[in-house]
């Protein structure tokens, strides 16, 4: 569905991505792991069109979409939930959801908003409240709900668990699983490697702008190198 070939992205003089090859299969959850500064978010931003790669190609549904602008990519079916819950804080929850369907011209928006609210009952309860007054977890749910209203084929989630309480994180991951079951492909960037690999089908591990390990999620969960670097090694007692 999505294929990145030899992507190199720069911030000014600094090379953030050094030739990324990545593939996302339809109907799967693919996760992108790595430490701070590994280039995970840059990869996401490149896919969503927020930043143009210097070299390499992005293919979506067999079409070359390299260098397209975000609003064009959204029409093609790529929707990004940016890092740090970018919600519109002085609009109400309902207005935020309506904004998610901004580019759509069909008449099912109202129905879809109802459906999304069923999945996120807390949003229905607070629909007339200003979005800025929601708690962190609720804001993250709102951001995901809003992205879903764009009816994406591919949903990009940039660190949805960041700064949230463990219980809420578990809830968010459940929702991501449900989204996949509804037929939306998900590319998930996470620092929370263990949780992400548990729900993912396939995983990539990045380090300093390169992909160093990739494989089916189950294998990665057992991979010694990953266990050591990201999941925390069990200390052997002396």
């Amino acid at each position: 569905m999505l294929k990145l070939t030899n992507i190199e992205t720069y911030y000014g003089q600094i090379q953030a991505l050094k030739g990324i090859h990545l593939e996302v299969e339809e109907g799967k959850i693919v996760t992108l792991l790595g430490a701070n500064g590994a280039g995970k978010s840059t990869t996401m931003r490149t896919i969503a069109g927020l930043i143009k790669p210097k070299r390499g190609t992005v293919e979506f549904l067999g079409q070359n979409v390299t260098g397209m602008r975000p609003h064009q990519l959204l029409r093609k079916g790529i929707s990004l939930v940016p890092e740090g819950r970018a919600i519109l804080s002085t609009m109400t929850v309902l207005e935020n959801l309506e904004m998610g369907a901004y580019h759509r011209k069909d008449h099912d928006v109202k129905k879809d908003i109802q459906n999304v609210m069923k999945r996120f009952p807390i949003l229905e309860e607070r629909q007339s409240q200003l979005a800025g007054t929601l708690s962190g977890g609720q804001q993250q749910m709102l951001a995901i709900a809003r992205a879903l209203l764009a009816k994406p084929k591919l949903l990009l989630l940039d660190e949805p668990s960041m700064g949230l309480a463990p219980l809420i994180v578990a809830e968010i991951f459940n929702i991501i699983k449900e989204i996949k079951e509804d037929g939306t492909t998900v590319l998930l960037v996470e620092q929370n490697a263990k949780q992400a690999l548990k729900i993912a089908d396939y995983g990539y591990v990045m380090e300093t702008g390169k992909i160093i390990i990739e494989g089916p999620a189950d294998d990665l969960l057992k991979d010694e190198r990953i266990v050591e670097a990201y999941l925390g090694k069990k200390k052997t007692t002396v």
Partner: protein
Amino acid sequence: MLGELLNPYYLQVLCFILINIMLALSIYVPLSSGQLSLGSAGFMGIGAYTSALLTIHYELPLYVTILVGALLAGVIGIIVGIPSLRLTGVYLAIATLGFGEVIRVLFVNWESLTKGSVGLTGIPQLGRELLKFAKSIGIEPSALGLKNNQFVYLSLVIVLLIIVLFILWFVIRQQNSRIGRAYSSIQMDEKAAESMGINITYYKVLAFAQGAFIAGLAGALFAHTIGYISPSDFSYHRAVEILIFTVFGGSEVIIGSVFGATILTLLPEVLRFVSDYRYIFYGIMLVILMAVRPQGILDLYLFYRLKGKRIKRGTS
């Protein structure tokens, strides 16, 4: 009795209030998309000089030249707006302020066209043209119980009022449309707006150009109201004055611009002794306002309360 009330002086003050409301709106519109543009004085100058020169040299009808002046300001707004996209916040403010100065210096130095710092005189006045028109279709001011100069200013006020009401109607309608939603989402969070599929380049340039058009229109009407313009009318002071209209009144709500422009145009007239110290007064006021009420006198919260809506806060 009626003659007493329709004092030309009062009417002229009313004209300036209406023009200043337009100028305040020319800052409000780009600001509603998160762009602080201080170029309004420059765009106003473009509108004023364009319309004035066209009427002086080509004797075109005023409604044509005023529209051409506003449109030219709008087009230049697009041209300036595109490179300014890379700038946000205070950097955009400085760049647009610089643009305004460039325009002013151009007016000072392009003497063959603009007569330099002397300025342009003998610009046809809109009110007098309206009087001529009224007489040509057989309406005599005296038949309405008005003196000639009362008719001149009264008709001018009516025309300006119609234009201001139209702009207000347009901006308010726009705010509740797709365009308005795009503006306010860009203002709140550009990244979020972009990820929702809003073409932020297009909407930012559109908002900027709309502001420039309104400023150009106000400038052209200004030229044909007072009949004399010089580069100093469009200087840095004017830019700051326009900004203060909006900031003082409240930049979150459209009525803030109307309120700010009205109060701050009236104030120096009512308190004559303040007039000379206007800029000192403005400066002090701005400092106090920024410290105490940075959103301006009128804000969204006030309107929520007036409507009886309770803003829910917290998570419970």
